[in-house]
Every structure is written in structure tokens, then in C-alpha cells.
């Protein structure tokens, strides 16, 4: 089963009060443990919202607003994607994640094709499977 761990944080608060640089090493150790255990599929940080944008689809045309997203109390700061045997295993990793500045870690299951059987047309599921295979080939998976 795959789970996404989403690190959510108050960007403004963290900029005013940056984390201890020791966090780099702690993150490195945590990531190493997950790689050693064979569970880590991916993990990335995200640049601050000042470099980002939000696209809204409320009108006839999509509208783009540049960051920073000052009104947001919580933003995604980074994520991990794990492949584990169970929800409990995902939670046990999430409990060990090294954050300590008031962040919240959301643990969310990544959907698989089986989730959509009977909901999406079979040809759509087949097409998606093919897309995934082609994507994996394209970017060296």
C-alpha cells in the first residue's frame, strides 16, 4: 500500500522563527532509516509559496495568483511517499518524522486502480495503466 506523508506548516510563523539547523541531519537520518527499511518511494521539500502560484477555476477562464499565499494558515512544505504493508506501518513511520516547530503531518493513502473499479470505465483504467508504464519508461523508472 502506498501512503503520502504531507508536511503542513505555517509558513509565515516558520519564516519568523526558523527551525534549528540540526533538522537537516535529523531529516537525513529519518530518510536513511526509511531507505534502509526499503519503504521510501519519494520525498521532496517545496520552495516557499513566494515562488509559487495558485490557479483557480471559478470563472470562465482559470485565474492565476502569484504567491506568497499570505492568507493560508497552513501550506504543504514537503512530502514523503512510502510503500508499506499496512496503515499501521505508515503511521509508525509518521510518528518518527523529525518535525518540531508546530508542523502537522497528514497521512493519506495513495489511490490505486482497484479503488476505481466499477467507478471508472474499464477502458479508462486500462489507459491509465498504460500511461503509468510509459511514464516509468520515459523518466527512467
Amino acid at each position, binding site marked *: 500500500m502506498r501512503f503520502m506523508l504531507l508536511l503542513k506548516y505555517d509558513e509565515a510563523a516558520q519564516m519568523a522563527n526558523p527551525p534549528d539547523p540540526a533538522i*537537516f541531519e535529523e531529516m537525513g537520518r529519518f530518510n536513511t532509516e526509511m531507505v534502509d527499511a526499503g519503504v*521510501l518511494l519519494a520525498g521532496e521539500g*517545496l520552495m516557499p509559496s513566494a515562488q509559487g502560484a495558485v490557479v483557480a477555476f471559478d470563472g470562465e477562464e*482559470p485565474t492565476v495568483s502569484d504567491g506568497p499565499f499570505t492568507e493560508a494558515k497552513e501550506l504543504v512544505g514537503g512530502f514523503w511517499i512510502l510503500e508499506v504493508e499496512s496503515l499501521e506501518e505508515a503511521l509508525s513511520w509518521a510518528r518518527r518524522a523529525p*518535525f518540531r516547530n508546530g508542523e502537522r*503531518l497528514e497521512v493519506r493513502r495513495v489511490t490505486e486502480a482497484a*479503488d476505481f473499479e466499477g467507478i471508472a*470505465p474499464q477502458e479508462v483504467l486500462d489507459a491509465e495503466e498504460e500511461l503509468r508504464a510509459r511514464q516509468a519508461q*520515459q523518466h527512467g523508472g
Partner: protein
Amino acid sequence: MRYMLIMQAPESMRVGEPDGPPADEVFEAMGRYNEALLEAGVLLAAEGLAPSAEGFVVTRDDEGATVTDGPFAEAKEVVAGFWILEVASREEAVQWAKRCPIGPGVRLEVRRIPEMAEFEGVAPAEVLDAEATLRQRIAERA
């Protein structure tokens, strides 16, 4: 450069939910969008996330970690899915985001994923080396 497109939506707007779009239309449109991303050679990853009712939130204080189960009733919007693109510019990422076949009430956050080279001089060299090794091991696992 890599950009993450994060779909933020009220949970009531998921496919199958009362305010959600018809499943057939969504799947067809998303399939076409993902195909276009793939044809352009920009698609690194794309996934959906199960509803927050299946999810959890972990918080931490001096006592340790606390796990709270979903749904995230207080949240107006929840991360429903994401794409990761490899593009030449921020503008290209934004253009792809604008083409995403999602409806009113759904937002797409466009956020840059930094590359390791950006942390040279910021993080200790041994940390960066260790990370490079880890990334190599992850890539080999795939």
C-alpha cells in the same frame, strides 16, 4: 526545473460525492490531460489521494507524537491529488496547471521542488552527500 501541482478541493467535491462531478467525465478528461503531459515529456508523477476519512494527522510536542484520525472536518479544502512536472520554466508549469480539467471550487497550487545543488553552502556537505546517496538508492529501487 520541477514543479508540484497540488490539487486542493473541498471533500464534498470528490467524484462520487454529492457536489462531485460525474465520474465518467472526470476520468476521461483527466486521462486526456495526463496523456498530454506524457506526450510532452513533462510528467514525472501523478497520484490521487483517498478521502481524509481514511487519513490521519500526526502532531508532535515535547511529550511525543499524537495521532488524530480523519476526516479533517475543519478543513475547507483537502489535498486530493498532485502532479510533479519537469519543465523549463515556472511559466510552463503555470500553463499546464491552467489546462487541468478541474472545476469551480478546486484550486491548483503550483510549487517548485528545489534541487539539491541549491542547498550547497546551506546544508553541511556531508548531509548533501548522504542525501545524494539516498536518492541514488531510491532510484535504483524503482
